[in-house]
């Protein structure tokens, strides 16, 4: 169990007094949770969020260490600073959770999401969709005579922006993976 996220160089065991808590401001945090990949572990994490009334904006999970059977769950959540602290502490209590990192607090991090987007249309709209995809560095991964499927990777707001542009051009379906994130540096 490691609920205490000690900043590098800190001598304190407790991170509770590192940040002002108990303000009303809603903050958006990306939390990475390293868990033992055993049956039901995702249910434990999700059950914690629903049981205690926390928000989940996005969630991704996959095994990242096949020999150690560890999975990484990346959760984007919103809440007041106090709620965010509780979320981290409550996650740390779960017996199968090995480590909890608040990527928003612990330093700058890289966030990426992948989306595949189906756009249906022909004529000018089809050409325009292709041109915008090029600007956003989205790849065409499938095409028929009147549709494209684009693959786009980036921060969530970039994907939002691209999806908004595609909407008038015939956006038919969109599938997103949710955020995967890592801390920068070593």
């Amino acid at each position, binding site marked *: *169990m490691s*609920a*205490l996220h000690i900043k590098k160089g800190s*001598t*304190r*065991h*407790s991170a*509770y*007094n590192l940040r002002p*808590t*108990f303000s009303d401001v809603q903050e958006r945090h990306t939390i990475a949770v390293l868990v*033992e990949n055993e*049956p*039901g572990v995702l*249910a*434990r994490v999700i*059950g914690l969020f629903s*049981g205690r009334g926390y928000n989940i904006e996005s969630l991704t999970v996959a095994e990242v260490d096949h020999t150690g059977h560890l999975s990484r769950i990346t959760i984007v959540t919103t809440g007041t600073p*106090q709620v965010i*602290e*509780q979320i981290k*502490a*409550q996650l*740390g*209590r*779960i*017996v*199968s959770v*090995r480590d909890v990192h608040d990527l928003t607090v612990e330093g700058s991090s890289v966030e990426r999401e992948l989306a595949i987007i189906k756009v249906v249309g022909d004529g000018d709209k089809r050409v325009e969709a292709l041109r915008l995809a090029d600007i956003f560095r989205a790849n065409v991964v499938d095409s028929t005579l009147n549709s494209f499927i684009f693959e786009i990777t980036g921060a969530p707001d970039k994907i939002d922006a691209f999806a908004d542009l595609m909407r008038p051009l015939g956006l038919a379906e969109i599938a997103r993976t949710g955020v995967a994130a890592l801390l920068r540096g070593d």
Partner: protein
Amino acid sequence: MPVLDTGLTLSDKSKKPHTELFFPKFSRIFRSFGNLRNKMSQNPALKLENWRNCLLTPLSLAHNVPPKQKGASGDENASRNRRKHAHGPVTVNHNRTHAPPNDRGLFFVKRKTHVANGAKQMTREMTGAKMVVQALKDQGVDTVFGYPGGAVLPIYDEIFLQNDIRHILVRHEQGAVHAAEGYARSTGKPGVALVTSGPGATNAVTGLTDALLDSIPIIVLTGQVPTFMIGSDAFQEADTVGITRPCTKHNWLVKDTDSLATTMHEAFHVATSGRPGPVLVDIPKDVQFANGEYSAPKPSSSHYQPVLKGDLEEITELVAAIETAKKPVFYTGGGVINSGPAASQLLRELVDATGFPITSTLMGLGAYPASGKNWLGMLGMHGLYEANLAMHDCDLMINIGARFDDRITGRIDAFSPNSKKAHIDIDPSSINKVIRVDIPIVGDVGHVLEDILKVWKARGRKTDAANVKLWQGQIAEWRKVNCLAYTNSEKTIKPQYALERLEELTKKHDRYITTEVGQHQMWAAQYLGFEDPNRWMTSGGLGTMGYGFPASIGVQMAHPDALVINVAGEASWLMNMQEMGTAAQYRLPVKQFILNNERLGMVRQWQELLHGERYSHSWSEALPDFVKLAEAFGAKGILCSDPADLDDAIMEMINYDGPVIFDCLVEKHENCFPMIPSGKAHNEMLLGEAETQGVIDSKGSVLV
């Protein structure tokens, strides 16, 4: 025709071949018997002859023979002695009283020929069922509370074949879990319950949640349908790990026998380390039958290793605050008790050395003795006036192993507005959850207290003695309010009076108190004094009516010679009254002290305060005659309604060697005071009947 406790009569049994009745799987039994012989060769006391003798114990020793018959044969003392020596006659051989003597004898003679073959297989490989029992033994378990059913039969078979672990047959799975809780709380060791799949598991849910909220280490073992039937809506199938995920600290579904032993050991580790709590191991029936490798417990290789030592920097900050505090108060909770007797000892040392006043939550009573000179009494919604005012006005609050529960804080924005707050807790999520604290210390109470004492002594044992004395003077003023005063009556027994007399007449005994939930629980906390930890078992967090009776059974099993009293209300008590069967069977002399006001007292009180005295469904209609009820179970019933008879009646209860139902008819409309109404601050407490109308405003009335 003697009726056996299986519910079958002899003639019922004789209709079937005994082998079919008891041994559905021959091959497995042979193997088990091999194990048995191996055990016997290691332990000369377990010679086959001894086993046969013990199996052939006459049926007159069977536990469900009503005590009346015993009394008739002048055997009262003998039965007392048996209980003293071996937890009642039943525990000597209760596993073996199921079958008539002839059957048992025959069975063992027949089996004998197979022993030689079976023994060869016995290395560290064994069946899953055997592993369960072996793991319990290796973890030092001596008592299991349970109820058999289809999916745990292999484990019950193994229990049948051994003598180290006593199995207590309860009458309802909820009772098993509460009994395990009572056992755990009164001993500091984890309690164990064993129940079957489906309804057995769902019945255990209340007990699990209760243990979760009160941080009680228990291990619940549930049977499950075979792995290949999971998900098929099989008979008595339930998604046990799914259902119990939010109400356990952790749970496991064991899918192969090879991982069963390590899972069992891990379960004990998780239940007892860090903040203790309930765990559940779900074991499918095919896993119980199959063979696997057993591994003995070893120093835990588990990743779950909570931090025990507190941060020295924070501890030093707390010591500095202790040195300068003018109006300090210790606010202690169940964490001190969970940390073990050493923590209570260290707490006493710290409190007495500093001279600071100390109050405690409902859960923490007994960590500091009620007779101690710095004791303020319990705090909270029904806590003492001086304790709550000290909390409100203090300038340094030292929370040790408590969690700022809403019953304690009252209105949060008015909670102790001018104090610096320190919080010692082993669970980081407790810190800053409800109340923002200035000095957070994550660690085990015992370890942290030790360090605090060390640092404080090293820095010269300083306190602001002059100001603390003034503070004690202020507290003495508050104490003069005498908030527990009540108007006594010569006609009816006041519940407070009943508890005062109970305290007076039992305090010199080796006494354990359990309670149900409601007014009586609060009165018990107010009027009974606890000198030691682990003497007070009550459902604090979940507030489970029906907790106290089965818990008293668990306590009595752990402390056979102690005086175990369940302070109950008649409504709570009826919720798990089926456990009278258990108390009678094991002749556990648990005293059920029922404060009978024929009301759901606390509900009635709230309806009076909040709902315009509309007493919707808050009275107990059609109550049983408790004396006759006791007699129906072969126990003793006492009825008392006159204050003048109360002392004699209580003495009669104490002196009776056996279970007693004490029906104490008390004043029906007594309210429990002092009280901090919901939505009010500590310094807005109600002291008596003076003004109870409209005390809770609309905002407060949505709170519970």
